[in-house]
């Protein structure tokens, strides 16, 4: 659906906002772009949507070039920006109708009504935007982006500043769009968001796309499982069979921590318990913890930063 090849964006002060980005996004998937502030997420989205001029490289949407065939590519895209760039004194209905017209579509009362109803904005249709809450303004922006039936929806930090209830409703809405065949690309700081709704994840850092992976693969490949064994008596040393793995004893000598990557097949709980039981030390508790996508994200970014120094 979207193909980005060797994309570079260099600003006049020689700042590389995007560096040699190549990326393919499939139709109907939810793709999450993660990265710290200033990583280039918004720049990448803006390049695809035509808001900024790329320095070099090629972007194709549905096999159309975003520069040569900009009318075709842009008519397929809906964009929800990060801030609230709205005409404050305009009514909700007028601003949504304006967006539909701007994208070349004839007025369609039924479609606009359906969009506003699905976003719980219909009863606010005549309200000036200035009177709406932040969450409602966010929904107005989504309604504007959906007003022309886009095939691709870009959501730049869609849930920043919205409450938990609304965030969950937005996740529901995104999944519903995905089910209807819309390709969704979102940038987010909430890793939980990506973990919940994304099919694939791309990590950007300092303008470079350092990783693109299926969400499950990412968690399996980079995720860790931690096994924590709490003893009733002090443990002096790590058993020889366990030493081979990333393991250590806590300072109070009462806990043994064993870390393993999820894709490490050669150890399992049964084997570990067999070794531990041979120590003949009473066990008080056994816990396991799995790393979240957030832990993986931070590990990848930290590793990248370390390698740069």
């Amino acid at each position, binding site marked *: 659906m979207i193909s980005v090849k060797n994309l570079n964006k260099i600003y006049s002060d020689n700042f590389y906002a995007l560096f040699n980005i190549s990326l393919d996004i499939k139709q109907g998937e939810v793709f999450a772009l993660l990265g710290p502030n200033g990583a280039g997420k918004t720049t990448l989205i803006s390049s695809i949507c035509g808001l900024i001029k790329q320095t070099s490289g090629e972007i194709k949407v549905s096999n159309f070039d975003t520069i040569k065939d900009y009318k075709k590519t842009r008519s397929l895209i809906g964009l929800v920006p990060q801030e609230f760039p709205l005409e404050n004194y305009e009514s909700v209905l007028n601003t949504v109708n304006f967006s539909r017209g*701007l994208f070349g579509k004839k007025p369609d009362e039924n479609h606009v009504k359906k969009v506003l109803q699905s976003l719980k904005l219909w009863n606010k249709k005549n309200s000036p935007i200035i009177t709406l809450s932040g969450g409602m303004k966010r929904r107005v922006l989504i309604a504007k982006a959906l007003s022309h039936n886009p095939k691709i929806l870009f959501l730049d930090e869609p849930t920043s500043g919205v409450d938990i209830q609304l965030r969950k409703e937005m996740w529901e809405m995104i999944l519903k769009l995905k089910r209807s065949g819309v390709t969704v690309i979102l940038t987010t700081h909430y890793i939980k968001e990506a973990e919940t709704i994304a099919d694939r994840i791309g990590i950007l850092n300092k303008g470079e796309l350092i990783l693109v992976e299926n969400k499950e693969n990412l968690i399996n490949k980079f995720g860790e499982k931690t096994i924590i064994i709490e003893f009733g008596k002090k443990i002096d040393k790590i058993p020889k069979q366990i030493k081979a793995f990333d393991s250590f004893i806590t300072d109070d000598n009462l806990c043994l921590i064993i870390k393993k990557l999820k894709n490490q097949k050669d150890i399992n709980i049964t084997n570990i318990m067999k070794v531990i039981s041979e120590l003949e030390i009473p066990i008080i508790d056994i816990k396991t913890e799995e790393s979240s996508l957030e832990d993986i994200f931070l590990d990848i970014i930290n590793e990248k930063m370390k390698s740069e120094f």
Partner: protein
Amino acid sequence: MNFNSIKAIYKFEMARALRTIMQSILAPVLSTSLYFVVFGAAIGSKISMIDTVSYGAFIIPGLVMLSVMTTSVNFAAFGIYLPKYNGSIFELMSAPISAYEIVIGYAGAAASKSILISILILLTSTIFVDFYIKHPLLMLLLLVITSITFSLFGFIIGIWATNFEKLQLIPLIIITPLVFLGGSFYSISMLPELWQLVTKLNPIFYIINGFRWSFFGTSDIDLFTSLSLIIIFLFICLAIIGLIFKTGYRIKG
């Protein structure tokens, strides 16, 4: 041509004017009417005829042009500056619409509003002065070309401006003085020789006098010079706008 997009911009801009009808439409009509009272009725009665035209009637084309030029520039400049200011220009830049379609929408709405105001001013002036329009179709043509040209100029100012002060700077310190000194209220023959020469350097002088010709069939300058000048200015504005969209000046990163 993407007519739905142009229509959307046009309707949105016209709706903005209707929402602020007092400020957008009635205020310019009222302030121009005050000129009729002060210059036409009060001072005009002390001034003799100018080329068989009463002073009250003589200033009508000048006042209409003063209104057309300033309102066209202001409407178009504000029209494109506001989306830049509140950030909603992102939508315009990401929409499947060409640069010229955007310009037609914004400049078209600005020109329509200024033509509407001009017609209201002309109707209002009939309360104060007896006058006739010798070449009404030509008058309408010049009104339309001038309002479009100055709307394009306003569009350029709106793109160039980075704050509200800059937005007002050119209309206030360049256009208004040039219109006032361009023969809106007097004939060039009423000035000393040196000031006649200075006035001839003012491009607005030619535009106002062309317009005056359409009213009375007589003016300080012939119609052809006036029409040529306004058309040249129109093409200069179009060329600058073309350059703005090609380079993305102040609208694209």
